[in-house]
C-alpha cells in the first residue's frame, strides 16, 4: 500500500469514526486541526505509528447495547450470562454490564440511603453499559500497551489479553467505570458485544436490553467519575497534533 493511499484511508477512518459524534464533527476536526484534505500530511505523527501499533483513532463500532432502566427487575442474569457464557465462571464483579452496583441504592451509592434509586430507594435499577466510544476512546487512550483495539467486523473496543499487563490504567480512564478486571488472570476486560450477539441481551427476562446499531451515548449518559488516568506521552503528542489551537 503506498503511503498516500494509506493516509487517505486512515483519514477516512477517522471521519467515519466521528460522524455521529456531536462533540467532534467532521467540520470541527478540520477546523481544529487547521488542515484540509490536501494538507493531510499534518496527520503524519499518527501515521508514523500505523505500522507498529494501533492508532488512537479506532474504527467505529457497528453496534451498541442500550438499556431501559424502567424495565430492569434487578435479577442480574445479564451479569451472570456475560461471565458464565464467555468466561466459564460466574463473576459479576467482572461482568461487562454492571447492575449490582446500582441495584440497592442507585448510581449515587449507599450514601443516598433510602433517598436514592434502586431497591432501597425509589426503585429504579440503572444498568451500566459500555458506550463503545467514538473518539476519544478513553480506555484505549489510557492503555500504555495499546491493548484495547477494535475487532472487526463489529469493531467493539476489546482488550487484547496478550498485550494487557494488568496495570488498570484503563479502569481509571473510563468516565462511566465500565472497565472490568479479572482478578483470576490479572487482565482487564470489557464489553466485546459478543460478536454481535450479546449474551446479556439474550439473557434479560424483561426485555430491558436491546442490541442496536451504534449511536453516540457519550453525551447522553451521565458519567460516574472524573477520570484520573494519564494518557501516555506518545499518544498525548498525537492528541496535540490534532487538538492544538
Amino acid at each position: 500500500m503506498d503511503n498516500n493511499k494509506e493516509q487517505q484511508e486512515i483519514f477516512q477512518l477517522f471521519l467515519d469514526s466521528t460522524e455521529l459524534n456531536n462533540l467532534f464533527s467532521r467540520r470541527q476536526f478540520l477546523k481544529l486541526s487547521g488542515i484540509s484534505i490536501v494538507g493531510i500530511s499534518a496527520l503524519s505523527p499518527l501515521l508514523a505509528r500505523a505500522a507498529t501499533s494501533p492508532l488512537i483513532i479506532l474504527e467505529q463500532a457497528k453496534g451498541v447495547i442500550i438499556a431501559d432502566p424502567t424495565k430492569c427487575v434487578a435479577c442480574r442474569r445479564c451479569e451472570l450470562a456475560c461471565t458464565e457464557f464467555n468466561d466459564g465462571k460466574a463473576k459479576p464483579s467482572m461482568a461487562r454490564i454492571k447492575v449490582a452496583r446500582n441495584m440497592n441504592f442507585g448510581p449515587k451509592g449507599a450514601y443516598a440511603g433510602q433517598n436514592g434509586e434502586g431497591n432501597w430507594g425509589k426503585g429504579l435499577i440503572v444498568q451500566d453499559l459500555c458506550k463503545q466510544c467514538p473518539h476519544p476512546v478513553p480506555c484505549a487512550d489510557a492503555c500504555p500497551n495499546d491493548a484495547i483495539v477494535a475487532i472487526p467486523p463489529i469493531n467493539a473496543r476489546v482488550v487484547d489479553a496478550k498485550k494487557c499487563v494488568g496495570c488498570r490504567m484503563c479502569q481509571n480512564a473510563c468516565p462511566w467505570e465500565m472497565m472490568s478486571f479479572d482478578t483470576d488472570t490479572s487482565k482487564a476486560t470489557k464489553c466485546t458485544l459478543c460478536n454481535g450477539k450479546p449474551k446479556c441481551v439474550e439473557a434479560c427476562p424483561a426485555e430491558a436490553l436491546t442490541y442496536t446499531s451504534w449511536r453516540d451515548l457519550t453525551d447522553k449518559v451521565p458519567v460516574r467519575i472524573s477520570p484520573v488516568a494519564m494518557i501516555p506521552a506518545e499518544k498525548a503528542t498525537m492528541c496535540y497534533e490534532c487538538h492544538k489551537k
Partner: protein
Amino acid sequence: MAKFGGWAGKVLRVNLSSGRIWTEDTVEHYRDVLGGTGIGYKVLWNEVAAGTKPFDPANKIIFGVGPLAGTGAPCNGRTAITTLFPTCWPKPLVGTGHMGGQFAAELKYAGFDAVIVEGKADHPVWLSIVDKKAEIKDARRLWGQGIRRATIEISQELGPDAAVAAIGQAGENLVPMSVIMNSYSHSAGGVGAVMGSKNLKAIGVRGTGSVRIAGKKEAWEKLVKYHLSLLGANNQHVVPSTPQPWAEYSSPTRWVASKGRKWGASNPVIDTGTCDPHDLNRIAYRTTNSAYYLGDIAWQYTVRGNGCTGCPIRCHTLLKVPAVSAKYGIPETGMNTCGGLNFGRSFFKKFPDGPRGQGNLEACMVGMHMADDYGIWCNYSQLQRDFIKLYYDGTIKSKIPEKEFKSYSWDKYEGGDPAFLFELLPRIAMKDGELATALGQGTGYLLEKWGLSEEQWGEDKDLLYWKMGHPKHHSNEEVGQCGVIINTQYNRDVQCHSHTKFTRNGLPIDVQKRLAADIWGTPDAVDAMGAYTPMNMGKAQMAKWSLIRKELHDSLSLCNWMGPWVASPLKERGYRGDDSLESMLYTLATGDKKSREELDLVGERILLLHRALTIRDMGTKEMRTQHDIIPEWVYHDPNNKPVYTKGTIHLDRDDMKLAMDMYYEMMGWDKATGAPPAEAYKKLGLAKVGEELGKKNLLP
C-alpha cells in the same frame, strides 16, 4: 485450580466468645451433604449436644448455601439457616429458616459456602466478610436500630453492593418470632433471636470473586437455556390465569400476566402482555404477586417485580402507594411477597372497603414497613390467625391486665384501621406488655403461657394449626394424604413445596395424571385438589420424592418454591418438565458426576440426618406417636360432607394410618415407631449416626 467447580471451597467458622475465626475445606468436610441444610444438620449432629437450648452460646447457627448459589442456574438465590429453632414447642429441635435475596450469591463470591457461628460476643458485634477476609466489628451503635438502618450503615462501610443479613429489635430482644433479613425484603423466619442471643447484629458480605463452572461453558449455556425454557411463573405454575392466545388452558394460578394488565406505577407503565412461554425475554412479566394476593387494585400501584440473584421469576413486587406516606408517615414504596406482603393485613378480620380494597392494601404497606424493620416473623401467618382468634373470643381481654388492654385502640382494630399496627408491632419487638410478649413467643409457648389447649387449636380448621407450635404448610387442602405426610415430618411449618407446585400448576387433572405416571409410577399418585381418593403407594412415593427434593434444593441452593421442574408450560412437550435438571446442573457446575438417582440418594441422606437429629434431641424413637402428629381438623368436614367426595379436603383416619405405614415403608423405616433402623442409616452412608442412636436405644 480446585478439583471441583460450584463450591467456593471454604466454610467460615466464627466463635464469638473467643473471637476466633478459622476456615474448613468445604469439599473435604461437607461434599457428602452438598451445602445448605446439609451442612447445617451435619454441624448440629457433630457439634451441638442434645439438650442444648436455642439461646445457649453452645448452640450454633449455620448460614449454608450450596454449589449452585451464585451461578446462572435459574432460581439459586437461597440461603438456609439451620439452628435449634426457638419457636419449636414444647422442646426446641433442629429447624431451618430460609431466605432469598443477594446474600447466598455474595457469600460465594466472597469465597465461602457457609458461615458457622458459635459462642456469644460480650458486646454487640457484626461480622464483616470481604473477599475471604472476616472480621468481628463493633455493633454497639447499631444495636437498638432497625434492620433498615443497620443495613444502610453497613453498606456505607462495605460498599453499595454488599449483602447484609441483619436482625431488628425483635431479634435483639430474643423474641422467638423474629427474622433474619437481607436485601430489603428477604427474610428467614424464626431464627433472628438466635443471632440476637449471640450479640450478633448482622453479617455483611462483599465478594468480588467467582464461582467456577466445571463443565464446558457452551454446555452450561445450553443447559441453562434449556432450564429457562421449562420455567413457568412463580411456584412453577405453568398455565396462565386468564385465556391467552398461545395457551390451551387457563386456571387460577400465579401466572397473572395478560395484555392490559399493567405495572401501573412504573413510569411509563409496562404492559405485562401475553407472555408466550417460548419468549424467554418476557419471563419476568409472568408473575406479579401483588395482584395475585391483593387483587386488581394492586396493578395500579405496582412498579415492578423483584427477587433473588439470578432468578427470572420475580416473586417479590415493588409497590408504590403515595397515600401511605401522608397518611401513616411511612415510605411510599414497599416490597415483599406472600407472608411478608400479607403481614399487616392478616391481623384484621375486615376492612371498611372490603377484603381486596384500599384499606387492605394500606395495611400491607404498613405491615411491611414495620415488620421488615423490627424483624418480626409471622410463622406462616399463624401469628395473625392466633391474634384474631384470641381477640374475638375474648381471650386477650381475660389474660392481660385491664390497663394494658385499654392501652390498645381496639376500635381502630375492629374498624380495620392499619394505624393499629403502629401500636401492636413495636411492642412485639420490644416485648412490651403481656400480650405482645406472649405473641412474640410463638403459638406453642403462647398457649402454654396462657393455659390454653393445643388440642383445641388443632381442632379448629380455620386456625390451620398443625403441631409443635406451627401451622400447616401446603397440606391436605392441596395435596391430600401426600400433603399430610409431608406436614408431619418437620419441627416447624414445613418448608416443602415440591408437592403443591405440582397439584397447583394449573394443568387439568388428566394431564397431571399422565405426568404423574412418568414421575411417580402411577397416575393415581395425584388427585384433583379437594376430590381425593384413598391412599396408594404412588402418593407415598410422591411424598418421599417431594421431601428429598426439598432437602436437595435447600442444600444445592435451588429454590423449592420454583423447583422441581417436572411440569412445563410447553404444549409440544406434552407439558413435561425434566426431573433430572438438578442432577444435570449439579454435575456440570461441580464436575462431580451424579445421576438423578445418585443425587436423590444424597438428598435422602440429608433428610435422614434431619430425622436422626430430631430423634436424638427428642430422646425418643416413638416418632409416629410423639412427632409425626396429624391435627384433628384434618379428619373433619365442617359441613359433614363424606370423605372422598368432591369439595371436601378432610381425610379418613384409618386411611391416614395406612398412608403413614406406606410412607415409612417407602423410606425403609419402622412402621410401629416411625424411626429409621440401623440399615436405613447404613444404606445412606450414615452408619455411624445409626450406631450412635443405637447406643442411646433410639433405634427401633
